């Protein structure tokens, strides 16, 4: 897979975490901190999976081959 593409996917995944966190805080205020925490945790988990399975896999292969 194209290295630039998977790198962009990894960066976008973690940028999405930042955007989602800001949007959640912006829109929900301090009403329920646990409810706000869970979606942030979920999107972090999604970004982690993308990082490990997509971006990390390609870059690790590249390092092994180098």
């Amino acid at each position: 897979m194209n290295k630039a593409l998977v790198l962009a996917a990894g960066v976008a995944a973690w940028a999405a975490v930042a955007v989602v966190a800001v949007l959640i805080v912006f829109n929900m205020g301090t009403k329920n901190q646990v409810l706000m925490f869970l979606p942030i945790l979920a999107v972090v988990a999604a970004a982690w999976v993308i990082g490990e399975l997509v971006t990390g896999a390609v870059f690790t292969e590249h390092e092994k081959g180098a």
Partner: protein
Amino acid sequence: MAVLQKTFEQRRELRDPGLIRAIFSSTWLAPLWLVARLYLGYQWLMAGSHKVWGEGRWIAVSGPDGLPLQSFWQRAIAIPEQGSPAIKYDWYRRFLTFMLDHGWYHWFAWVISLGEVTVGILLIVGAFAGLAALAGAFMNFNFMLAGSASINPVLFVIALLILFGWKVAGWIGVDRWLLPALGTPWQPGPVLRRVLKGRVANEECPVCQMPVDPARAPASAYNGLIYLSCCPVCKERLDAQPARYIPGLGPAIPVPADG
């Protein structure tokens, strides 16, 4: 002197016990650091959001910026007729008074507000988690010095713990990829090595021809290139007579460039 020699001459390095290494260096506990990081980052993002876009925001208001901060500082430096003042250290009261007298709250409100949001985001995504925790701890420390306890002591302790665990705190986060790529001053990663490679002119010390360690070698700059020496003594010699050790170098003026 003998006592000093006996105590320090061996330069022993004391190893941490396994439990401490497991907590602060093992990736197995990265999920625990993730929870701590998310909680701390969330708190900072919340605090910053109130100052940036809340109803009583500190910045980007129709009037002058930073008036809530001015009020906070004024309350903090006040010395009541009865009871004890909020600030216990006179030097800190003088520091806040100086900033108040010079109207620094206008721009300092931006620093605090955007700083809190930035620290929050960095902790949540796990990018430079150690540095973000350090910045957060510094802000907690200042709020506490100004007499505002609130949740600052708890956040301060969590930030310190993340600071100690900086190597693994962002493992489930951007640091998992960012730190190995950048590297550290004592162990540069591919990015740092690539940046240095274009400017470093030598692999051996120009004075004694010993191999140089790009991560630690003292550096001098001549005609836009970095010349690494193997040790401070050789750097002194190089800087004293650069034309002697660098072939083809004219009468250039040495520019120190540490690191």
